[in-house]
């Protein structure tokens, strides 16, 4: 069981905040990863998780290790991006997508989907299966991006833990799945290997929402439980990126506790479901 990530009690909170700001500045200047506008309380927890794992005393000592040992940076990078995900996470979202978005997608000759912050790919495979069952995968292209190359490699491999298949099967059914979920994978290498034909229409590639620009125009953008880790200013920047990357009447899907409520683009979308599914209307 992992230790709870937290600083020692004696730690001066103002000093700690300064050290964290310096660490994030150093990471940006040296490695180009920009975490400076991440929400403070959650990134602080992630940093302390790494400090404890490396058995270091404080934030400054982690900065020294990170700057002089790229492997420590790689481990920290994995900690900083939250890679907890599952297939058909929030089944209600996928059910609403099937019922309310799929009919819109049928009207397009070609469908481009951007899955921003796809992590290890579970939700990408979920969407590919959904589109396949609706007869839309053939005319779709899914662009699945993440900041982290390590998780993208796992996503490309398409092998997920066998012990989670029962949970995923339940989610799949709740999400309105039309077949037997087990048709989509075979048990292999202690894992469930998903049918490679699902990813024939998927492009996995590295993309940084904070620093990279739009790379195409999309009919659908999915970005779920990624923006909650950003502060308001960075959220505004990413919402602009999404707005600029969506076609007129394109669809934006967010996480269950995220919204456009405080964003400058609130009036440019209408919510078309009780789930966080929005349509760009102006």
């Amino acid at each position, binding site marked *: 069981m992992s230790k*709870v990530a937290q600083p020692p009690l004696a730690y001066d*909170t*103002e000093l700690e905040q300064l050290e964290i700001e310096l660490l994030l500045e150093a990471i940006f200047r040296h490695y180009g990863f920009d975490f400076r506008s991440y929400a403070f309380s959650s990134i602080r*927890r992630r940093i302390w998780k790494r400090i404890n794992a490396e058995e270091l005393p404080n934030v400054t000592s982690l900065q020294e290790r990170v700057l002089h040992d790229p492997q420590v940076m790689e481990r920290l990078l994995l900690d900083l991006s*939250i890679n907890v995900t599952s297939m058909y996470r929030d089944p209600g979202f996928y059910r609403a997508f099937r019922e309310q978005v799929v009919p819109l997608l049928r009207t397009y000759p070609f469908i481009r989907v951007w899955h921003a912050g796809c992590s290890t790919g579970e939700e990408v495979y979920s969407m590919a299966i959904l589109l396949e069952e609706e007869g839309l995968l053939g005319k779709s292209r899914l662009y699945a991006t993440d900041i982290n190359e390590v998780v993208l490699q796992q996503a490309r491999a398409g092998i997920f833990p066998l012990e989670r298949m029962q949970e995923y099967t339940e989610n799949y059914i709740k999400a309105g799945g039309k077949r037997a979920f087990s048709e989509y994978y075979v048990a292999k290498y202690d894992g469930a290997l998903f049918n490679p034909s699902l990813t024939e229409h998927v492009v996995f590639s590295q993309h940084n929402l904070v620093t990279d620009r739009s790379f195409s125009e999309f009919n659908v953008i999915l970005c779920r439980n990624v923006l909650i880790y950003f502060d308001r200013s960075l959220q505004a920047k990413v919402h602009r990126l999404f707005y600029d990357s969506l076609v007129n009447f394109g669809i934006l899907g967010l*996480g269950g*506790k*995220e919204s456009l409520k405080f964003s400058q683009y609130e009036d440019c979308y209408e919510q078309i479901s009780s789930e966080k599914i929005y349509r760009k209307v102006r």
Partner: protein
Amino acid sequence: MAYELVVIGTSWGGLHALRRVLGGLPANFDLPVVVVQHRHRDSDHLLVSLLQDHTALTVHEIEDKTPLAPGGVYVAPAEYHVLVEVGQLQLSTEEPVRFSRPSIDVMFESAADAYGARTIGVIMTGANDDGARGLRRIADRGGAAIVEDPATAESAIMPAAALKLVPDARVAAVDAIPALITKLVVKSRKAHGGRPALPARKDDGSLRGTP
């Protein structure tokens, strides 16, 4: 230092206890109250309305960066951790801590670090030991610790675990907890400059001040 935040953690039997405590707080209670109750992942909206029926305070389900307002009650959604920042709440989907998400420990520890001695932490009925470490941290930062009396709690495990780590916590039966909270708040305000001044608010709705 006057108290500015109440955090409550509970598990098994918590709905009943929360109704009694939130229902017992006066309608003009003006501190934000953040609540973690372990529960099933499909029950979000239900819990909010079940609590709202029993209190004059306004109950909200926590979303991304929900601002804290005086007298608001903020309930953690299932499957997310809640981190307290000064003036707002942050959600996280990172892995469960000791099998719990939301974790009472995670919420309490972040509250202790953000609000320090201005925090009142309350642990009530529950069938596991989540929250004990968090309450310890609140006490270590100079905040107030309250534990429901294990003798009368629906499930004694969580209160007993909290008392083991925080032996000098104030112990009260569930019906006495609202009055105890109110008394602590009033007393702390008297000791620090008379009237119950609310903390100044910035334009963005967050509270001014350093942890």
